[in-house]
């Protein structure tokens, strides 16, 4: 059994140590907000926070998480919507939505380390793939979240 701390709760997961965190979340805990897009860490759909930093859960074995705190999209706005989520809702950023959980988690990570990112900062941090092409609204959403946070 592997002990994991996810969204401020402790879980015992019956899984081999090599199982990627993504599948423990989705299939063992039914936390299906984190999505599977490629399984090799390229697309970013599976992005979660581990001790506050964005990580691609499809390439993090559960055996390596240890005591670190995992946060998924379900917990991000549980008490109150995160400013990024509110901006996403205000501007209707998602289209199909399958990339957006990971996209939001990556954006939150970016704004945590760089509260007022430049376009270059955004380009470097956001390598997540969006197949529907919501990039223009993602940029606008980031600007809106930055504005809201500064108030």
């Amino acid at each position, binding site marked *: 059994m592997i002990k994991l701390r996810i969204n401020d709760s402790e879980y015992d997961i019956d899984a081999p140590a090599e199982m990627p965190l993504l599948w423990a979340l989705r299939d063992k805990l039914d936390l299906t907000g984190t999505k599977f897009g490629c399984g090799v860490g390229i697309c970013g759909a599976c992005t979660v926070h581990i001790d506050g930093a964005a990580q691609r859960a499809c390439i993090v074995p559960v055996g390596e998480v240890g005591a670190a705190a995992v946060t998924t999209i379900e917990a991000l706005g549980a008490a109150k919507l995160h400013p990024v989520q509110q901006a996403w809702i205000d501007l209707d950023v998602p289209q199909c939505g399958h990339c957006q959980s990971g996209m939001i988690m990556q954006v939150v990570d970016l704004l945590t380390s760089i509260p007022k990112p430049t376009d270059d900062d955004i380009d*470097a941090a956001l390598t997540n793939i969006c197949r529907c092409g919501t990039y223009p609204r*993602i940029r606008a959403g980031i600007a809106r979240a930055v504005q809201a946070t500064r108030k």
Partner: protein
Amino acid sequence: MTVTIGYVDRRSFLALTGLAAGSLVLGARPAVSAAAQASDFASLMLSIALDGRIHIAIPTAEMGQGTATSLPLILAEELDADWGKVEVVRFVSTMAVPATLVPANLITANSNSVVTWFEPLRRCGAAARAMLIAAAARRWRIAPATCTTGPSVVRHPNGRDTLCYGELAAAAQVEPVPTEMVFKRPANYRLIGLVGNRTDTREKTVGTAIFASDVRLPGMLYASIRQGPVAGARLTTFDAASAMADPNVRKVAAIAGGGALAAVAVDSWSAMRALDSAKPVFVLKPGATEDGEAFRRSLLSALDRPGVPAPSAQGEVALATPGDKRVEATYAVPFLAHATMEPMSCVARVGEGSCEIWVGTQVPFRARDAVAAALKLPLAQVTVHQTLLGGGFGRRSEVDFILQAVEVAQLAKTPISLIWSRGEDMKHDYYRPPYAMRHRARLDTSGRVAEWHAKTAGPSLLRRRRGGAPDPNGRPDPTVVQSLLPELYRIGAYSGAWVEVETSIPIGFWRSVSHSQNSFAVESFMDELADAAEQDPYAFRRAQMTDARAIAVLDKAAELGDWHKPSPAGRARGIAAVHCYGSYIATVIEASLRDGEIVVHRASHAIDCGLAIHPANIVAQVEGACLFGLTAALYGEITIAGGEVQQESFADYRMLRIGEAPAMRTHVMASDAPPGGVGETGTPTAAPALANALFWLTGKRVRTLPLATAFA
């Protein structure tokens, strides 16, 4: 009891389960075909509950293109509903009554959701409103014509009394269904063209949105499949013992007549690992070792054959004069994958004499029919639950993965969640086929197009779908030849032709279908003609256009894209205009080269799609579809060797990231014309506008996609 409008009478509605007593329930049906007009079904659209909540369910897929908002808006407008009380419900096939009569061609494709459902939804909403007014008037003992409505209320002419839709619903349902509807005038719209937000944004932002791969059922197990390296390959051996050595793996078996190996486990990852451990060996189908390079060459040489007319020669050929210019160019495009963000997935539960599936699909009734045939069940015993789609683009109009899920569920004797790996999804797509296109034209001395002849060589999409021999009457496949010749420009005489060249690679419908390759050729060729005529590409197009809507869109895009101002140093602009799906679009792209790498700075669009139901979403669709087209134009190429697709991940099938995406501006033209399609309309202009920009930048004309390596 329930009522419907239009073609179905009350007797067609038997007891409908699951509906709250006293609610008003109405259905509607679009005319999708002559067969549909003859059949007696209605899709349950609308239910108004006692507490005033309004549930709306539409059979279209929500794959990001916004039908879960635009279609309810149409209905809610004519109903005169309080939009805040509207809840959109995911469609289940049994909501169509009777479901067995719904034609399989009721699909979400061809950008036709608003086009198909606009009238039926207006009628449904207007009928419900009339019945609610009639119920209120009866209670007040006044004439219905004296009543008005406001958002979810009927208003008494005394200006004081009102009755809510919720409290009227039970009485309204026994009022006669009107045969003549009174529709709102666009000037009085409160919702259409005005409502900003989508109905599905919140769930997609907080992680509660349910895609097929998120469905969870009691006793459900997880499965994945591995097909052979080449389409049609058959499984010969696999190491079941190694796969089953993992205690988390429950079953490993051949399915699809040996076309695939399936693994069932307590989690998806263990199922995918089991497919690796089993080391399946496939034998290839004879003759299925197509080489992509050889096929590409065969398309080019096929252009020397006559082919079938598409269309045959039209117009009068003006006599050539010495000053005329002749231009000829040959274009080529490769196989393209859909690469939806969510790999193919489906949940299936097979019972005694019945089957339920949960799937994000563009073809719920085609899926139902295929599952019923596979299980030898009556249609009424198969239920399709629509989930959100993690991308469609035409890939989810196929049912291959659905049939696999059903077969695995049968074998496993328990509900199954089937998820394909990304590698499987990339290698077993139904690709946009490659085409070679040759265009020849003659410009007269005043720079007008006197003649234009176009020929395309490549596979038939419809024949692949329906199977069998080529059309004995030699009619061309419209999904190949539509827009082979331009529809926007006045040309003296023209002809088209199609040389069918078959491929063994599975092919299918990709966002914008024939427009994706034909508009690349046509709109690139227009620039080549403009260049030969020594005219500005915008002015050259404008002079040949006769349609006022096309001209307005071209003018607007040119304005947004600063066409008439000099480009910044080191940058150039290209323009393209297309008429597709009943809409008009023009695009200006501004690009530069940095160390041989293409940089797309700006993309400006104007679209005329008739009545704009949800303008904010139209902008999102145009820009998203453009990015889809730019990704393909820059990088998109599926290569084939020995019949096997060579790409297997986003590492070798490159996707545009936010850092490469241009800044966008999009204008939606105001219009009262009937709605045109939007979901695919932004894609066809991307590749030609970019290729044109790069020509004006460098003097180098690239006629083969993808473009990224052409300037390196």
